[in-house]
């Protein structure tokens, strides 16, 4: 058998097995994405209730709470970057990291120090490969985030926020994640988590917030509410990121599978051509040999 044919055969069989992997990953992503979207939807009532409560407290009291007051000078900012644990999701992690780099540059240009917090092994690998510092990393389960993880991240960030600048504390907190807009569009997004910008414009006149009584005191209520609000924002971001990751993976695996099919077709044609060329050559050698004997 000709060397050329053997090479093509090898290429065909390896591409076929790769295609099987792509197909399997595509199917897995497709089956998980529905669940991820359902979880995004399931977390909405909590997020809405908590947002409403925070704006209720904020709108009727001149709140003077460290979490909501803008510091005079912002010297250090924390950035939480949410990426995936695994690759094979197209440009998903890369575009989040690109967005984070942009934010990083912007903050530095404003004369702030940046402290980075990472979620996902991809972000960790990116930072470690470049020998860059990061404060903390959380890995595992990025495609199905747990509320406990969000709580842990929230607690860690709040602790940093409560610390003074001289003790390594931060004055503001940003989150970079991928917003799930639809199955085909996911958008890397930056939100500022702290200090809070309480959204009051969402309240229309028809649903003016009532004058609440507080139990025990407005301040204590806020003390208890704000960490929950932060946790729920982080959790929401993680859920959106998970849905985006799966959607990106499904798309990437679909096109990888299609490309593999194309390649297999191409190599099959080349193999057939090579085989035919070999047969033709053998035939002409035989004919030429017979002719030589007859002559």
């Amino acid at each position: 058998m000709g060397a050329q044919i053997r090479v093509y055969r090898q290429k065909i069989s390896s591409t076929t097995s790769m295609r099987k992997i792509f197909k399997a990953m595509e199917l897995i992503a497709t089956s998980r994405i529905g669940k991820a979207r359902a979880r995004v939807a399931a977390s909405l009532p909590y997020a809405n209730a908590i947002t409403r409560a925070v704006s209720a407290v904020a709108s009727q009291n001149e709140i003077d709470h460290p979490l909501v007051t803008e510091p005079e000078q912002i010297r250090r900012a924390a950035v939480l970057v949410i990426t995936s644990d695994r690759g094979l999701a197209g440009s998903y992690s890369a575009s989040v990291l690109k967005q984070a780099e942009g934010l990083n540059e912007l903050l530095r240009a404003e004369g702030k120090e940046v402290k980075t917090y990472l979620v996902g092994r991809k972000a960790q690998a990116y930072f470690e490969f470049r020998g860059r510092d990061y404060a903390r990393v959380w890995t595992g389960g990025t495609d199905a985030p747990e509320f406990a993880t969000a709580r842990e991240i929230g607690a860690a960030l709040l602790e940093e926020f409560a610390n003074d600048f001289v003790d390594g504390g931060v004055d503001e907190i940003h989150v970079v994640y991928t917003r799930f807009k639809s199955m085909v569009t996911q958008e890397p997004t930056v939100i500022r988590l702290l200090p809070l910008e309480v959204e009051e414009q969402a309240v229309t006149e028809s649903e003016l917030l009532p004058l609440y009584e507080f139990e025990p005191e407005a301040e204590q209520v806020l003390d208890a509410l704000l960490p929950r609000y932060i946790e729920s924002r982080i959790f929401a971001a993680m859920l959106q990121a998970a849905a985006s990751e799966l959607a990106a993976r499904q798309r990437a695996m679909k096109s990888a599978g299609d490309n593999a099919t194309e390649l297999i077709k191409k190599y099959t044609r080349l193999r057939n051509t090579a085989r035919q060329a070999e047969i033709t050559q053998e035939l002409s050698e035989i004919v030429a040999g017979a002719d030589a004997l007859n002559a």
Partner: protein
Amino acid sequence: MAELEVEIVAADHFVWSGAAKMVKARTSDGEIGILPGHSPLLAILAAGELAIEPVSGERLAVVVDGGFFSVDDNRVVIVADNAQLGEAATAGIR
């Protein structure tokens, strides 16, 4: 008689909603009972049990481990970190 419109949500899922005659909750200051027509309130929940008396059916007990709840215009929204529907029989609140 007016009714309370109760909604219980946990961090990652919806727990229960329905009409109720009364809601009994434990705040950090002590127990509080909410009847229809209660003035707007925003309170912190202590870990423990909530009792809900639905308009029809058995009294419900919900175990929560912290959170808060708001009352306005006969609408009670209970936001718990973790909430679990318990059996009315084991509630032990009368």
